[in-house]
């Protein structure tokens, strides 16, 4: 079922990673990704992988789930691998099929590209979505973006829209499943036939879904107005984000690891060049 897709889902918990300030996690994830793109060679990648591995252990999320989260991007991975094997050059020639040449350099690049994408995806899942509730995530984002308020950027409105959207995604999924079940009970068939037929079969699902969504939006607007919501002006928060020692320690440790990996790749590539 749709619900089983663990992509981007939050797993409640009480690990160190869960308790970190969302702003710290957001920034560290971005820095991790930047560092990843600056890495060259096996050793720096190994360091980054080891870092991520430690984080996974800390979250106490099972590896089965982590593997499952890679499944949806499997096609992308295969595509990347194939493209790189055939088009990247360098190293010695391994195989020649007509005009297609496979080189050791190609295989080497393909391997690292795939590895990099996996690290990137798993890092965003583990460091952000799996361990940060959507509410915390938007709070963190709002706080990080708040300097933009000075240039009249609607930060509060944006984050409110985001939290509402995030809040209603599970509701919409649940409702889609319910409506699909109801129409299946009346013999609707979503699984066989041509693409055109399948798209047409979705009409009985989409119409009630949209009608209910509009109705819910109206209700929500009314409920918010009843509670005197009038935008971000003068609104105070219930949860105030505050950095604690744990946050500082994780920033220092993580940044050290990232810097080490980046410096090592500079030195190693330099060495190779000489």
């Amino acid at each position, binding site marked *: 079922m749709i619900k089983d897709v663990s992509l981007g889902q939050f797993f409640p918990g009480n690990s160190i990673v869960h308790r970190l300030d969302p702003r710290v996690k957001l920034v560290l994830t971005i820095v991790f990704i930047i560092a990843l793109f600056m890495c060259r060679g096996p050793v720096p990648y190994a360091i980054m992988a080891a870092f991520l591995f430690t984080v996974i252990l800390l979250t106490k999320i099972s590896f089965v789930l982590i593997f499952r989260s890679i499944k949806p991007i499997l096609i992308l991975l295969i595509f990347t691998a194939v493209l790189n094997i055939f088009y990247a050059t360098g190293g010695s020639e391994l195989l020649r099929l007509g005009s297609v040449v496979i080189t050791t350099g190609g295989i080497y690049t393909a391997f690292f590209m795939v590895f990099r994408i996996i690290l990137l995806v798993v890092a965003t899942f583990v460091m952000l979505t799996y361990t940060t509730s959507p509410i915390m995530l938007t709070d963190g984002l709002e706080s990080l973006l708040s300097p933009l308020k000075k240039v009249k950027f609607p930060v509060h409105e944006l984050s409110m829209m985001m939290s509402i959207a995030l809040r209603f995604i599970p509701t919409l999924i649940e*409702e889609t499943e*319910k*409506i699909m*079940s*109801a129409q299946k*009970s*009346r*013999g*609707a068939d979503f699984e066989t036939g041509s693409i055109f037929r399948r798209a047409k079969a979705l009409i009985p699902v989409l119409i*009630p879904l949209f009608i209910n969504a509009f109705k819910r939006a109206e209700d929500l607007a009314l409920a918010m107005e009843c509670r005197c919501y009038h935008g971000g002006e003068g609104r105070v928060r219930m949860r105030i984000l505050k950095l604690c020692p744990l946050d500082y320690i994780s920033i220092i440790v993580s940044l050290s690891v990232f810097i080490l990996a980046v410096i090592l790749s500079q030195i190693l590539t330099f060495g190779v060049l000489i």
Partner: protein
Amino acid sequence: MNAIMSIRGLSHIYSPKTPFECSAIDNINLDIHAGETLGIIGHTGSGKSTLISHLNGLIKPSSGSILYEGEDIFKSKEFTHNIRFKVGLVLQYPEYQLFEETVYKDIAFGPQNMGLSGEEIKTRVLEACDFAGIDKTLLPLSPFELSGGQKRRVAIAGVIAMRPRVLILDEPTAGLDPIGRYDLLKHIKAYRDATGAAIVIVSHSMEDIAAIADKLLVMNNGTVYLYGTPGEVFSHSEKLLAAGLDLPQITHIFNKLKERGINLPSSVYTVQQAVEILKNLGGGTND
């Protein structure tokens, strides 16, 4: 009597092997007979909806099997698809599934999926309207213009129009006014009597269940807690109360009377029975 549907050792676990793992029902065995009305009661989250969603193959069992006239409903994809026309399922709050431009077209959705001819579809729609108690003047209207109760009836008619041999309804009377509930139950009964179909009805209202069911299944934490005729089940008042359920009002009154030392039978669950018993007790007249 041969069962039209048999459930053998049925268990279902939601989201297995994740932190959200949840065993909803566990080792259920049950027979459903044609012409019989089975009432299912149980506290919120006891697995009633999960159980009945298996019966037309909407969800697959984690273990166990479901037989329709002796054949496994998951035998083949084709067979599961066709089972849905024989085992009609009306889900909880079915009014949210309406989508067509007119009430007529919406009721016709099921028969159309069966591949019936235009004439046959028309017969079925009109017949389903009678069974669900829908005024024919509503047919050309948009389903979104109707009241909640009318929408409910249209949704039920949409399933009845497939002429199912087993009609399953998940809390069909929730949110209806007393007259609406009574009327709906009467129509469901009429469908059973006219077609000899089996009815399975889930409800939180003990009065509704007592009024319509021939057999009662009480669920508790995903297992069969009690099973029997309403008389048998309602005579276990302590057990029902312990499972977080209630008794019909009239049974409460009779239990109170018995506590005061009046000699009365212990399985009274409809007002009609009560009237009979009190009449036979003598003293006073009934008019």
